[in-house]
C-alpha cells in the first residue's frame, strides 16, 4: 500500500514538474528573446536600504529641483513628483537615514511619498496647504467634462419638457419617468406585477439611472453638461459687463442691475453665466476701502 502511494506520488511529481517546466519555458521565451534586456523579469529594486543608508545634506535656500536632485543622488533612488509644490525653495541640514531625509523633505513641500514598483520614490502633493490646488489644465478639464458627460445617463429631453400650463418647463427625471410608461405598462403594474429592469425602454433606464444619481432634487446631468458647455469652447468665449436680461428678448434691461458675465458660443449663441453681480462688486469695493 505504502509502496503504491510512493510510486504514485513519484509519477505525479514527474508530471507536475514537466508541467511547470513547460510553463516556465512558455513564459520565459519572450523574455529571453530580449537578451539585451536583463531588467525584464527582475524583481523591483529593493528599498530596504532606505532605513540603513545615511544622508548628509546641507542646502541653503535652494530651489526644489536642486533639493530633489541632491536627495536622489544621496539616497541612490530616482524621484518623481506629480506637480509643483506651493513652496518653491527650501533649506535643509540633514544627517540622518534616507527614509528620515525623505520624510523631512516631503513634509517641507507638503508631499507624501511612497516607493514605486521599480524602486523609484513617488512623491505626491497632499494639499494640506489651503492655497495649494491640483493641476487644472484646460485640455485635460475639457476631456474630463466631456468624458463624465459621456458616462452619465442621458437627459431624455423630450420626456423632460412639460407644457404646463403656459410655458415649456423642464421637469425632474422622476416625473419624466412616470410619463414614459405606456398604458400597457401602467395596466401591468396596476395589476400588482413588477417589471424587471430589462423590460424597460432605453429612455426609462436612463431616467432611472438619473433618478438614482440625482438623489433628492438635484440634476446631476445638468452639472456635467454645463461644465462641458462652458469649457468646450472656452478660447472663443468672452466676458462682458451686462445689464440683466440681456439675453431675453421679452424683457427690457433692468436699470442698475448689472453683472460680469461669461458668454460662450453654444448652438444658439446664448450660453452665459453670471459671474459677479454689481451688488457683490460694490460690497467688495466698500470692504476693501474699509
Amino acid at each position: 500500500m505504502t509502496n503504491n502511494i510512493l510510486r504514485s506520488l513519484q509519477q505525479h511529481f514527474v508530471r507536475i514538474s514537466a508541467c511547470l517546466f513547460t510553463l516556465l519555458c512558455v513564459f520565459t521565451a519572450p523574455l529571453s528573446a530580449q537578451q539585451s534586456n536583463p531588467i525584464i523579469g527582475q524583481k523591483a529594486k529593493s528599498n530596504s536600504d532606505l532605513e540603513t543608508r545615511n544622508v548628509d545634506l546641507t542646502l541653503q535656500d535652494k530651489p526644489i529641483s536642486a533639493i530633489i536632485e541632491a536627495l536622489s543622488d544621496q539616497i541612490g533612488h530616482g524621484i518623481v513628483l506629480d506637480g509643483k509644490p506651493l513652496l518653491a525653495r527650501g533649506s535643509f541640514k540633514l544627517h540622518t537615514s534616507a527614509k528620515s531625509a525623505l520624510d523631512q523633505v516631503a513634509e517641507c513641500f507638503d508631499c507624501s511619498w511612497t516607493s514605486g514598483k521599480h524602486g523609484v520614490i513617488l512623491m505626491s502633493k497632499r494639499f494640506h496647504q489651503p492655497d495649494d490646488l491640483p493641476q487644472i489644465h484646460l485640455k485635460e478639464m475639457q476631456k474630463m467634462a466631456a468624458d463624465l458627460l459621456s458616462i452619465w445617463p442621458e437627459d431624455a429631453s423630450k420626456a423632460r419638457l412639460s407644457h404646463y400650463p403656459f410655458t415649456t418647463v423642464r421637469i425632474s427625471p422622476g416625473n419624466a419617468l412616470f410619463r414614459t410608461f405606456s398604458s400597457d405598462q401602467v395596466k401591468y403594474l396596476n395589476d400588482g406585477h413588477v417589471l424587471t429592469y430589462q423590460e424597460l425602454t432605453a429612455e426609462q433606464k436612463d431616467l432611472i439611472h438619473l433618478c438614482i444619481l440625482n438623489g433628492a432634487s438635484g440634476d446631476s446631468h445638468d452639472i456635467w453638461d454645463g461644465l462641458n458647455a462652458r469649457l468646450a469652447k472656452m478660447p472663443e468665449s468672452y466676458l462682458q459687463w451686462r445689464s440683466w436680461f440681456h439675453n431675453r428678448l421679452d424683457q427690457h434691461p433692468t436699470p442698475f442691475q448689472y453683472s460680469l458675465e461669461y458668454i460662450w458660443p453654444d448652438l444658439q449663441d446664448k450660453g452665459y453665466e453670471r459671474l459677479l453681480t454689481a451688488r457683490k462688486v460694490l460690497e467688495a469695493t466698500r470692504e476693501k476701502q474699509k
Partner: protein
Amino acid sequence: MKISMNIRKMRDGSYSQFFFILLACFSLSLPASSQTVEHKEIRTLLQTKVHLRLGETTLAKTLQEMSKQTGLQIQAQDYLNDRDILVELDNMSVQDTLDTLAESNGWIWYEAKQGQIFMARPKFNKTRQLLNVAPAFRAIVPKDLRRYIGLDISDNDLRIAFRQSQPNNDSVLKRPEIFNSRSARHHLQLQLIEAPVKVQERQMFSWVTEDVKKGKKIPYAKLTSSQQHSLLVYFVFKALSTAFSPHSTGTANLIAGLDPVGVDESRMRISYKNNIIYVGILQGGKFSLGEMIMSENRLPDPLFQHTKF
C-alpha cells in the same frame, strides 16, 4: 489512503485545472505594460537606458527627451501634455520609466502602432450601467484632483486637510461622530471643494474696472494667463461643489467614495403601488421595495422622496 484518493482525483482530469491555475498565476505576475507591446524590436528598444535629470518639467518635455535618447516615438495624449512633473531618474530603462510615470499619476501607457508609444489616462467602460459609473468616474478625474476633493484619501488626511484650510472651523472635527456619519464626511469635503470657488470669486472682483463697466467685450484671449486659469478653476470647482450638494445625494455619494451608486440592474424591480412608482432591489430571493422615485403627480414639481437603497 487520502493521498492516493486525491491523486486519483487529479488523474481524473484535474491536471487541466492545475495547469490553468498555474497559467493564471503566471500571467498575473507579468508586468501589465509588457503585454501591451506587440513588436519584439520595440520591446528591445524599451530596455534602452535613459538619463532624465530634468528637474521641474512637463510630461510632454519628458517624453520628448525619452524619444530623443531612444529613437522611439513616445508621446502623451494631447490632454496630458501640460502636466507638470518633477523628474530625477537616471540609468533606468524606458519601460520602467514609463511604468513609474504611469504609476505616479494613475495613467497607462501602450503601443498605439509600431514604434509609437502613448501615455494616457486609464480606459474606462463606456457602457451605460450604474455599476460602471463609480470606476469610470475614478478613471476620468485626475488623481491629484481626486485627492484634493477628498476622494480616496484616509479620514486622517481629510481631517488634516480640513484643519489646515479652515483653522477657524476646527471645532467641527472635535465632534465624535464626525467620521461615523456619511453626511459629516460630505460636509468636510464640500468645504474643501467650495474653498477654491470663493477664492476665485474674490479675485474676479479686481477684474471689474471702470473700463470693463463700459460694457465692451473682453475676449478670453485678452485675459491674462492667471485670469484664464482662475476662470477655469472657478468652473471646475463650482461644478464639483454643485455635484456634491445635498440636492444631488447620489452623485455626492459617488464623489465621497462612501456609498457607491452602482446598482446591479439585473436585480432591479419596478412596481406601482398607491399611485407611486417604486424601484426596488431583489435581495436574497426577496424583493424589497427600496426607493420611491416618483409619484403619480403630473405637475411640473412632483412629490419626490429619496430613501437609501
